[in-house]
């Protein structure tokens, strides 16, 4: 599928400091792309450049092949990290207003708003003012404001932060629905489990540079498997002495065995089966969390 949002060698400097150093990425139609990084790594600056709030010093950003302009504004939706709406204006009024600013006409905007309100089971807030809503509901309204005009490119900055699990699921479903309808979504978060669930491709930024990029599966395969999860019926001893094993933690209910060589897996299983009955054996692939900490943490030392 075609890449709709393409960043090529984008550079942004603030004075002597380089905030974003030669970032390239492409988001396809119907894809959620994860943009990860520690605080201050350059995520917000990257997103602001994509939104046309600030201009790159070098490199190009194209939207469906076109450069930034008034037309692009209409197909982009944005949910800022600190989401904001007018506190004293009715929900319906301001969301319709924002939709109109993005080029919808009044009745289209009404219709789309009703659709989303219905989806989020929030029809009762239609005539309420934002300041009257709970924080979680305000966030839902912020999300609706970002997607009400059916954007082709959607920028979500920490979309799920501060929401209860029920609402996170609701919003996740909405994001997936938008993806299935063909939207290109640039997604930034600190919650790795969301990335693992939603994204296919990711970029990890650290101190303004790209440290890791590509398909999550491939990235995971590139990292060695370092953990074995073992569940047995009775205690197993002597696993530490097997070559390649660095440490054993836990009890028969669940052993976590750290290894520095995947070849150690077979001897571990053999030894366990000899001593007891094995209920569960798994050579765990690294979690994104571990990958993130490793690739960002190592550089920080």
């Amino acid at each position, binding site marked *: 599928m075609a890449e709709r949002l393409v960043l090529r060698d984008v550079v942004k*400097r*603030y*004075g002597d400091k380089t905030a974003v150093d030669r970032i390239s990425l492409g988001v396809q139609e119907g894809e959620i792309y994860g943009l990860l990084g520690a605080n201050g790594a350059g995520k917000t600056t990257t997103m*602001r450049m994509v*939104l*046309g*709030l*600030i*201009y790159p*010093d070098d490199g190009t950003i194209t939207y469906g092949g076109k450069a930034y302009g*008034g037309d692009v*504004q209409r197909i*982009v939706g*944005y949910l*800022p990290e*600190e*989401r*904001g*709406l*007018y*506190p*004293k*204006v009715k929900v319906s*009024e*301001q969301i319709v*207003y*924002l939709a*109109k*600013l*993005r*080029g919808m006409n009044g009745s289209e905007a009404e219709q789309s708003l009703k659709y989303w309100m219905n989806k989020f089971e929030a029809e009762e807030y239609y005539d309420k003012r934002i300041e009257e809503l709970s924080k979680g509901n305000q966030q839902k309204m912020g999300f609706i*404001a*970002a997607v009400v005009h059916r954007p082709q490119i959607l920028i979500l900055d920490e979309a799920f932060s501060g929401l209860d699990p029920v609402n996170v699921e609701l919003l996740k479903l909405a994001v997936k629905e938008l993806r299935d309808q063909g939207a290109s979504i640039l997604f930034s978060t600190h919650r790795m489990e969301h990335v693992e669930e939603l994204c296919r491709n990711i970029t990890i930024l650290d101190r303004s540079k790209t440290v890791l990029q590509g398909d999550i599966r491939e990235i995971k395969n590139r990292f060695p498997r370092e953990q074995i999860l073992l569940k047995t019926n009775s205690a197993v001893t002597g696993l530490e002495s097997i070559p390649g094993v660095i440490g054993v933690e836990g009890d028969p209910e669940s052993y976590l065995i750290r290894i520095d060589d995947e070849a150690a897996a077979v001897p571990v299983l053999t030894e366990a089966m000899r001593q007891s009955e094995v209920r569960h054996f798994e050579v765990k692939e690294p979690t994104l969390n571990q990958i993130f900490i490793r690739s960002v943490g190592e550089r920080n030392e």
Partner: protein
Amino acid sequence: MNRLGTVIGFTFKNKVRTKSFMITTLLLALLMTIGIHIPFFIQLFTGGDSDSANKIGIAAEDHPEIAQQIEDYVSALPDNELQFVPLQGDTAALNKQAQDQDLAGYLEIAPAGPQGTENDFPSVQYVSKSGSIPADLQASLQPAIENAKTRFIAEGALSDEQIKQLTTPAQLTAISYEKLSGTGTEGTDEGQGDKFNPMNFITVYVLMTLFFFSAMLTGNMIASEVTAEKSSRVMEILITSVSPLTQMFGKVIGVFLVGLVQIGIFGVTIAINLMLPYNRDVLAGFDLDFSQMPLDVLAYGLIFYILGYFLYALLYAAVGSIVSRTEDLGQAVTPLTMLSLAAFYIGIFSLNNTNSLLMKISSFVPFTSPTTMIARIGLGEIAFWEIAVSLVLLIAAIFFFGWLSAKIYRTGVLMYGKRPSFKELRKAMKAYKI
């Protein structure tokens, strides 16, 4: 263009419906109504019932001719409402009569003095319950008594015509060189005639006050709107939807319309109040003729008003954009408030001296010209090219500051935290490449 309309509509609708707007408008309209009624109320309370207020007694034992002359003089005054009731008797009887007949008071002309002083004009006193004399009564009686005194002393030595001349105050008039010698250029010659028309003065005064208040009030409205959008972070969404220029102009025009509505409401309030029959009489007393309204001054006034408004409004929007919290706004707009205050006071204090150097200079400075130029057009002498130059400068200033404000706005809305200094702002502009 379409989006500009959307921004204007949204700004207007939300501003007009706020409680604070409705309350301020109603309160001010109420104050105006009360203010217009003050002369009427004063009349109501001081006048008492008008019949007895206009009746005063007059007691002149030895000098009936003086009493007669006073009566004649007063009754010949235009709009005279005073009536005299002749009284007789000693002091106690006079007091009793005055009170019985419900008179406002009475004039007592002292009896002729002892031998040798009988040709002196007798003293006259006004006796009333409060022991004082109302100002309007004194204004009618004083010249009447003086007239009687002149006649008393002249005693047939002078003709009536001579006495009349004697009692008329000498006239001192003022005229310009050109007018006297008849060399004035046409145009100014005609204009000269209505320069001293009080309507000119009032028009200029009202236009200046209106400008000052709407520049300040709506300016603050705009600035606080922008700051509120910024502090509620809705700005980040707005700025990705519409260009900052569209946003800023939409806001400025929207609030301008709100201001117009407010002025309209006040105008209607004043008009209705002045139309009320009893107020119309009071107004007539001021001797104002609305048909004398100087249309040219009004037209120029409107042009300068609108242009000046935009100049200030754009700057207020820019200032609003660099502040992150509403609490910091007051301090940030102070320079602009000072500027509009200066424009107002230079104008007001120079109303009697519109041709001073200060006025001449400030009528070309874009920030002060909306008030001072009006004063010069309405009350001073001015050539057309001066108005044109001032207008061009004002328009140029709007373009320059509009451009600058848009840049500040664009940068300011992305900068959170403490209010940036100009240096930081410039640095940020460079960094954002705006």
